[in-house]
């Protein structure tokens, strides 16, 4: 065991409009671990995820990656992170392949062929079609395909299963498990109950909003 945890939150607080969403939050994640953040609407799940990506500044506390604050690491941290947020982050005017190529250019490209990636998320037939004409579930699958198109250790997922059908959810659950078996880290929020068949999860309940 290394002395410092891989991903660590120290004393995180988030205040919005004078209301503390959460305070003094501490947790650590080692490789191969997944954290599911639970709680009712408005309890700060999304805010916590955005603090972990560095998009939002915590009102107190720090997020550490290998013992270093993430805001000082910047690019060295971001090349380890893939974030799929509330918005899909895909361009409607571009095709699926063009979108994935852009995701690769912004991060660290994985060795997988992009056609294989699309095949894996059942979008192979849509490679060259414009994203604007696709359904919400298909766009979501494309957004999640970024996880496979890039080579990153930490997956931060805000409601990954929104608009997905049962079979897609099962497919992505399997992908999550494979990622954890390859020593990845996942932090996710979900209204759907996430359970992995073979691995244990950490759960964090942010509780009732005050």
């Amino acid at each position: 065991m290394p002395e410092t945890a891989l991903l660590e939150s120290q004393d995180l607080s988030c205040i919005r409009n004078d209301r503390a969403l959460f305070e003094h939050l501490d947790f650590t994640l080692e490789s191969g671990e997944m954290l599911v953040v639970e709680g009712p609407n408005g309890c700060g799940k999304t805010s916590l995820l955005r603090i972990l990506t560095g998009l939002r500044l915590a009102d107190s506390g720090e997020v550490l990656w290998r013992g270093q604050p993430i805001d000082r690491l910047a690019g060295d941290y971001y090349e380890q992170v893939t974030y799929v947020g509330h918005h899909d982050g895909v361009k409607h005017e571009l095709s699926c392949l063009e979108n994935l190529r852009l995701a690769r250019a912004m991060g660290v490209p994985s060795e997988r062929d992009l056609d294989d990636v699309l095949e894996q998320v059942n979008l192979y037939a849509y490679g060259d079609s414009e994203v604007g004409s696709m359904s919400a579930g298909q766009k979501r699958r494309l957004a999640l395909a970024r996880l496979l198109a890039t080579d990153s250790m930490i997956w931060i997922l805000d409601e990954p299963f929104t608009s997905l059908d049962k079979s897609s959810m099962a497919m992505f659950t399997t992908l999550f498990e494979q990622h954890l078996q390859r020593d990845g880290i996942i932090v996710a929020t979900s209204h759907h109950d996430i359970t992995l068949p073979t691995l244990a999860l950490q759960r964090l309940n942010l509780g009732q909003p005050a």
Partner: protein
Amino acid sequence: MSSRLSLLQAFVFLLRRDLLLAFRNRAEYAMPLLFFVLVITLFPLALGALPELLARIAPGIIWVAALLAAMLSLDSIFRSDFDDGSLEQILLSAHPVAILVLAKVSAHWLVTGLPLLIVAPLLAEMLGMPGQAQATLLLTILIGTPILSMVGAIGVALTVGLRKGGIILSLLVLPLYVPVLIFAASAIENAAMGFEVSAQIYMLLAFLLLSVSLSPWATAAALRMSAS
């Protein structure tokens, strides 16, 4: 183990992506250009078409219209990326955000600033600007409009998250455009009278260097603020 693209590759990639997007939305990007022509058409109608008067005020009119057209087009630099979440992806890129911002602003200038070069000689002719001033006019547009895009990008980045960002944007950006307006218009005026214009051109070049080197950092910081 694969690794991330070189910074230059990422820059070129994002630039090409934005140009492609602009090409697919080309109707939207034609608007500022039309606006530029339209505003200039209004002046002779309001002031009367006296040739001496028009030739006298032509540099000022063209540059004021260019500022307004730039203002109108600014919002499109970050608007759609902000709305669909692409901006978050750019901010979370492994590459320095300021360089990616520079790519986006360059693409924006190529589709909104550069086209002014094509219509400007036509408008100069219509306003009766003397021939020797037209080369200077093109030169000031070539150097001046990228400054408008660079400085404007800071303003858009600060206001892109706001519901009524448009009005505030003009209040933030137009005062900062004053130096460009002064030197560009004065250069054309001097050229029309057959005087030396190198002082003004050098000043504009200095502004350009300053804005290219400083504005992407401010824009990146402002985008982080807007995305939070």
